[in-house]
């Protein structure tokens, strides 16, 4: 069994605490994505699971065994690095075989494992080449091959697709997911790309400044974000945020801007309201719960249209909005349109703490 248990883990460099009390239970065979902006501590967390960083407080257990003081090579893990970290002077075969050789496996066993992994990853033709003779995508596969032959309990991926071009990234995303699913090995995957996170993970851990803001399935994070950060991080284009005040069943953002208030919201409070671009719609008739939007840019994408605009004289704070409408636009730049959103699609956050109300 290869569950990974991260219990109240914190990390400090001297007086500087970079990870605060992160806890998560990863089930056997689960694909967990650790996602967040640069500097949020996601690589640090991964490296602590790998054993490349000391754990300041807390415990990490792999397969039920606490591994805090165990060397990386004995933790039964395999890691794929962002820059592949292949040994440049060794052939592809030797790159994959190195760890097994050090473990003392017999030659025919090493040969068998390496060839099998090469077949799976379609790099069997390259076994005699050196890394510098391979393309980026091929090197990535060799790095994964090196991880697979170790037959580990957990795979650790540290932003493995960041160095690939966009098209290859999309292709490799699918392949990694398929491979992990077929092998059934628990995987921890670090990325800053929320699209990768949403499409690949069984569950996501969203990290921000060292705090685990939310842990859950992609759709859960999309539909029920617990903090403003998570709401703004997941989903593309990002959620729009407006500062306003509740009252009379409405949220007022200014002279010409209001939205219906979701039920159960506190009255007469300052709030930050969040609405996703895809949840705005054109308002039928001049309602009091409309936002009058001055259109700045129209991006016609074919099936949908992205409209960038701003609210004239909103109270304070940001008043730029992006909305997504289906079909072709029927208005022009510099016109003013009335838009609204359904109350249940409006998320309210505390302006100070960012927590969901």
């Amino acid at each position, binding site marked *: 069994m290869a569950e990974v248990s991260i219990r109240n883990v914190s990390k400090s460099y001297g007086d500087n605490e970079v990870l605060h009390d992160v806890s998560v239970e990863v089930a056997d065979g689960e694909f967990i994505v650790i996602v967040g902006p640069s500097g949020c501590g996601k690589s640090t967390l991964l490296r602590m699971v790998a*054993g490349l960083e000391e754990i300041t407080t807390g415990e990490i257990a792999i397969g039920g065994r606490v591994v805090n003081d165990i060397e990386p090579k004995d933790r039964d893990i395999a890691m794929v690095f962002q820059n592949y970290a292949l040994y440049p002077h060794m052939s592809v075969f030797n790159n994959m075989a190195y760890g097994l050789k050090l473990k003392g496996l017999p030659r025919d066993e090493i040969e068998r494992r390496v060839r099998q992994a090469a077949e799976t990853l379609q790099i069997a033709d390259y076994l005699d080449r050196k890394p510098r003779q391979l393309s980026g995508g091929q090197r990535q596969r060799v790095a994964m091959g090196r991880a697979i032959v170790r037959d580990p309990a957990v795979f650790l991926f540290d932003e493995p697709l960041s160095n690939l071009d966009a098209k290859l990234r999309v292709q490799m995303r699918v392949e990694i997911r398929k491979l992990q699913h077929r092998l059934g090995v628990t995987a921890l995957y670090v990325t800053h790309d929320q699209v990768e996170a949403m499409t690949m993970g069984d569950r996501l851990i969203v990290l921000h400044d060292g705090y685990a803001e939310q842990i859950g399935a992609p759709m859960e994070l999309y539909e029920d974000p617990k903090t403003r950060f998570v709401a703004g991080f997941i989903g593309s284009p990002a959620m729009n945020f407006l500062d306003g005040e509740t009252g009379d069943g409405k949220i007022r953002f200014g002279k010409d801007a209001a939205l219906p208030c979701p039920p159960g919201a506190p009255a007469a409070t300052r709030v930050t309201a969040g609405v996703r671009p895809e949840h705005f719609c054109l308002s039928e008739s001049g309602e009091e719960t409309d936002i009058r939007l001055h259109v700045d840019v129209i991006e016609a994408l074919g099936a949908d249209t992205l409209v960038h605009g701003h609210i004239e004289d909103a109270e304070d704070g940001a008043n730029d909005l992006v909305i997504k409408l289906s079909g072709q636009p029927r208005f022009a730049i510099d016109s003013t349109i009335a838009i609204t959103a359904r109350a249940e699609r409006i998320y309210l956050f505390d302006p100070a703490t960012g927590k969901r109300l």
Partner: protein
Amino acid sequence: MIEKRPLANIISHTVLILGIFIVAFPIWITFVAASHDAVRMTQIPLPLLPGGHFWENLRYAFSRGVGNAREISVGMMLFNSLVMALMIAGGKIAISLLSAFAIVYFRFPFRMAFFWMIFITLMLPVEVRIIPTYKVVADLGMLDNYWGLSIPLIASATATFMFRQVFLTIPDEMLEAARIDGAGPMRFFWDILVPMSRTNIAALFVILFIYGWNQYLWPLLITTDKSMYTIVMGIKSMLEAAEEAPEWHLIMMSALLAMLPPVIVVVGMQKLFIRGLTETEK
């Protein structure tokens, strides 16, 4: 766009040819002198064209000694020089690899102090420290043998710094991948660091071999037993012959032979480190 300026071409070619001539002429004279017999060499003007005694002189010098160095053949001196140069080059490379490895990859107390101490030794070439070094070597009984010839010259700050630079450019992820694969420090050193520094080692070997080969002052001091003479210092003592005129043809032949091994080393290693410099490591 290629400039078409015939005059500049002629001038630059002339200058270059002149330069080559100035450099090559002494070597030519040496070669010519080595191919004549003793009689011809005592007549002026010096010959400008080779004579017919080249092979004969070669055989003589190789197996027998010349002038004050009569007890030792040139062949023996060449051997001594070779052993000394190889020991110095090999020793310097081995020691510098290990010290650079320690400084870059380990954290230990006074690490930076040691680093600066190594740096300061750059201010202490052999000539500056000759007397204390001689005393230590004499007290240790290392006079007149290969160890005494090479070991005092074996530490190298420049090589240590060069390898430090090379090691600093190796990405940390390589070390981490090796750690996960189960490589301890010395395995990492041997399996990964050293092969990756191959071209630097080759380049350094050439430089250090020539440095060791050309040593004059230290072998002169250290060796009293004529069988330990090295060729570079030995040539000088060939010139001193108490009663007789120097045997120029043999001396010139010895000089020619002394020049040969460094040339062979440079030419031989050249392919290796040019290949290393032009291929991009990723």
